[in-house]
């Protein structure tokens, strides 16, 4: 049963890894890679490495999501739906791929891999925590939270705050001359009738009001009846 699961997960990991280079979209490539990693996480679960396996799934899902998003943003290919070539520098990458494959295969075959099955019911999670961090768990935890707070602080400080405040000051187009008036359409200053300016359509309901451009000015002072 475990063997079947191992081979199935391995096959899916290799197939989806191969798809990363064959699909024509950044999003598809990203999530094919995610599937590959999730399969590797599943194999870790089979090896009783619960935490490492599940953490792999967890980390890879977030990482691939962020990576896909950033790739699409930087490549200016809205949505990553347009077909695009996902491989470049063919000759170099084929060479690098073959070299990496041979190197890793030699490393796997040459290593004397341990073969001591875990006793049933062994708490690998506790062992892993002690092995990785020993007595520094509190320091690690504190450093992690501090680093995240620092990152958020850096972003907040470097992006001027406020939708209607500082950062939007740059939304005014730059001047045609250095330091000159902003380019683009100028808003016409018009009569005090709610920005409707010379538009005389309002007068349709007004009995006897003259349909001229300066009508709004006059109407503020006196009633239309008085005018006629």
């Amino acid at each position, binding site marked *: 049963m475990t063997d079947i699961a191992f081979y199935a997960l391995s096959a899916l990991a290799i197939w989806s890894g191969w798809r990363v280079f064959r699909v024509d979209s950044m*999003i*598809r490539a990203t*999530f094919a890679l*995610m599937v590959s990693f999730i399969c590797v996480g599943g194999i870790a679960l089979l090896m009783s490495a*619960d*935490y490492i396996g*599940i*953490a792999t*799934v*967890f980390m890879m*899902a*977030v990482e*691939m*999501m*962020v990576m*896909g*998003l950033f790739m699409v943003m930087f490549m200016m290919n809205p*949505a*990553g*739906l347009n077909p695009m070539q996902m491989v470049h520098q063919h000759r170099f990458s084929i060479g690098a791929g073959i070299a990496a494959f041979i190197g890793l295969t030699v490393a796997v075959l040459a290593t004397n891999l341990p073969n001591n099955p875990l006793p049933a019911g062994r*708490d*690998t*999670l506790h062992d892993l925590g002690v092995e990785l961090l020993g007595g520094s768990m*509190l320091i690690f*935890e504190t450093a992690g*939270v501090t680093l*995240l*707070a620092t990152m*958020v602080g850096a*972003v*907040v400080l470097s992006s001027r*705050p406020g*939708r209607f405040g500082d950062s939007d000051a740059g939304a005014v187009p730059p001047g045609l001359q250095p330091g000159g008036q902003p380019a683009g359409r100028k808003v016409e200053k018009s009569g005090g009738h709610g920005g409707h300016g010379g538009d005389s359509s309002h007068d349709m309901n007004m009995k006897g009001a003259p349909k001229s451009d300066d009508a709004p000015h006059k109407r503020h002072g006196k009633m239309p009846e008085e005018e006629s």
Partner: protein
Amino acid sequence: MTFAPALTTLILFLAIGIWIAAILDAVFYRRISGQGGVSVLSPFYAAAAHLSRQRLTTEAPDRLNWYLAIAGYLAIATIGLAVVPFGPETAVIGIKTSVVLWGACESLVVVLVFLHGWSPNSPLALIGAYRYVAIGLPIMLLSMFVLIAAALPARSLDLRDIVASQEGLWNIIRQPLGLPLFLLLGLSLTLRGPFDYADSADLAGGTSVEDSGANRAGWQVARLAMLVGFSAIAASTFLGGYLGPILPGIVWLAIKTLILMAVVIGLSHLLARMPVARMLGLIWKFLLPIAFVDLLLAGLVALA
């Protein structure tokens, strides 16, 4: 309980939960809008209406990812419910790292909702997908701190131990900041109310704008299933799960899940949705520091 009865309980819990969630949703909406009562069969009428419609498709969609997103969302909701202990030492997925597994479920929800909006090759769905990622990721990050804080008094990443550690005092009292923050995650995971940046009305349905027929029914069922799964997780993490006097554990869990489901649905109907930029500011500059405080307090209590 061995595996087979636990699995049966899980399926029944999920099915009945989805049905009640759908009714609650309709009842809240009708109460607020001042309309009359709701038939308990109305979810089935809605499902029948969806299923009797054709399944339309768009030009050049990614059909595989589209279907996988809908099926995956339902599967993730089920896995979430499966780590919830129905009684002492009884959970369908009883592993030592069940909180981490739930964390993996949370992060996969962001991926699947994104794929659901990306796959149809349609502009409004795509906007919903990108918007959701921007909000879904930081909310998920925030929930991690809340969950670590809840795991601290239990000294375990096992949800069964976390429930057992609340024997004397529930986490909602021990860590009062935890549940409100975690409920925001629930709104985000189930694409609801103030955190509905994926499937909202301002995008004419967002990621599900192109879903019709069985696809739409499937997506709606998955959203309700996620609500059930999330509420059961939250009930176990903060309200002591199956713990309670006289009644059997599963009944207590069901009652607490139902209460949290009603709270999430109520919040989703009563709170308005902010612009994305403001919500991002709120999450990163206000809610995340509160999550830090939650973790800090839990850590100090654990050290003391």
